[in-house]
């Protein structure tokens, strides 16, 4: 088997050398035919990927590493497959289309080998070898694709968390945080950091935390709100919780949570009025009546 293994490697290496262009063309063609890609990846880019991967295959075949480890342990080859899969993932191709695209290389390669030999035994040995070589590439591609997607999801949820907690200046020395969605430990941390920094930057005296967009206020959410209020107070500012809807008020009371030490208001408008009373000043920038 090892002599035939060497022979097959030799034959493939020769085919890659002599017919590299042809193989790349055929592979790109096959991928376009599959029409599974349905993305913005153009022919030029496919061609570039194909050239890079085919070039990286040669040192892999020469390395003498067992066939099922060639793709994973040849640095250039591994990177080529990973890079290709990540690009597909970002371009929105399906995982099936991505691994099928990689597996289409088998057909292109076998076609090139067929041009050199018609010997059935040799062709069979080459086909078996290529299957074992490239099935690993297909699996790696699938795995990378999933990882790529997960990475995108992680980044998006982080972005969402930061985007959805803006601190806005409502009035001179009055800041507001409109909370949307749930308030878990991680979210509280982001809100608190943003808010405390903004209090310092704007020399704010009142911070309004609006919970109109928080669907459920349970004891954990209440606890996070209290922590935020405490932190704001340590900064020397006052904190008003607004957006306490009737259903939320009843539920909090029944849960037995005591928010009596915290200034709460039903609406953001009420909270702003309370805040202005607290700072007990004229309009913004000392200019009464100027609504900026």
């Amino acid at each position, binding site marked *: 088997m090892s002599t035939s293994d060497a022979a097959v490697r030799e034959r493939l290496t020769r085919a890659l050398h002599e017919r590299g262009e042809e193989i790349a063309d055929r592979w790109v063609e096959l991928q376009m035919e599959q029409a599974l890609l349905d993305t913005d990846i153009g022919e030029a880019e496919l061609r570039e990927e194909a050239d890079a991967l085919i070039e990286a295959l040669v040192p892999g075949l020469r390395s003498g590493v067992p066939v099922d480890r060639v793709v994973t342990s040849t640095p250039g080859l591994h990177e080529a497959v990973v890079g290709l899969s990540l690009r597909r993932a970002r371009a929105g191709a399906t995982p099936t289309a991505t691994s099928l695209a990689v597996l289409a290389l088998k057909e292109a390669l076998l076609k090139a080998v067929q041009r050199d030999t018609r010997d059935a035994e040799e062709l069979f040995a080459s086909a078996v070898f290529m299957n074992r070589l490239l099935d690993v590439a297909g699996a790696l591609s699938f795995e990378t694709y999933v990882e790529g997607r997960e990475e995108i999801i992680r980044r998006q949820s982080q972005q*969402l968390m930061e985007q959805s907690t803006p601190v806005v200046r409502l009035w001179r020395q009055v800041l507001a945080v409109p909370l949307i969605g749930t308030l878990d430990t991680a979210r509280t941390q982001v809100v608190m950091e943003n808010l405390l920094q903004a209090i310092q930057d704007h020399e704010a005296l009142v911070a309004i935390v609006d919970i109109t967009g928080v669907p*459920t*206020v349970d004891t954990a959410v209440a*606890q996070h709100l209290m922590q935020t209020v405490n932190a704001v107070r340590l900064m020397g500012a006052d904190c008003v919780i607004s957006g306490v809807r009737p259903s*939320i008020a009843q*539920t909090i009371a029944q849960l037995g949570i005591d928010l009596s030490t915290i200034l709460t208001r039903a609406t953001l408008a009420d909270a702003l009025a309370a805040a202005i009373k607290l700072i007990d000043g004229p309009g913004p920038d000392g200019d009464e009546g100027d609504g900026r």
Partner: protein
Amino acid sequence: MALPGESTLASRGAKRPGRAETRRPPAPATYPVRTEEDLLTVRHAVRAATVEAGFGLVDQTRVVTAASELARNAYVHGGGGTVTLEYPREPGGRRGLRLTVKDEGPGIADLDAALTDGFTTGGGLGHGLGGARRLMDEFTVRTGPGEGTVVVVTRWTSR
């Protein structure tokens, strides 16, 4: 970010509660509570279920909040568990929603203490279990040291 619970919420929320009277109640459904995100899924599912069962806004909030407390207890103290939703019907015709929150954790050693406001072993506020009891109409707990905990709560519609 499409959570299963969100789509359910949207589709069920669109139905008219009044029409639900004549329909057969949905089959019981069980949700896992293994991660913080699962709590979100449970809340969405319970919110959709309260709409399905025909609760008003205040009762919806009560039941979702109770579910949130109990599911978090199972997650934090019980090391994870499950929440099952059922739609019982009283002989008198009142419809309801029953939550069964189960975990295989260490169990509650002193149930009376755990139901006391302000009692906590996990750094929370200590209002979760007692609060959930006040928010619901019926409340039973089966627990013991090393036996895990099963909390069954039911709320009936006022009509």
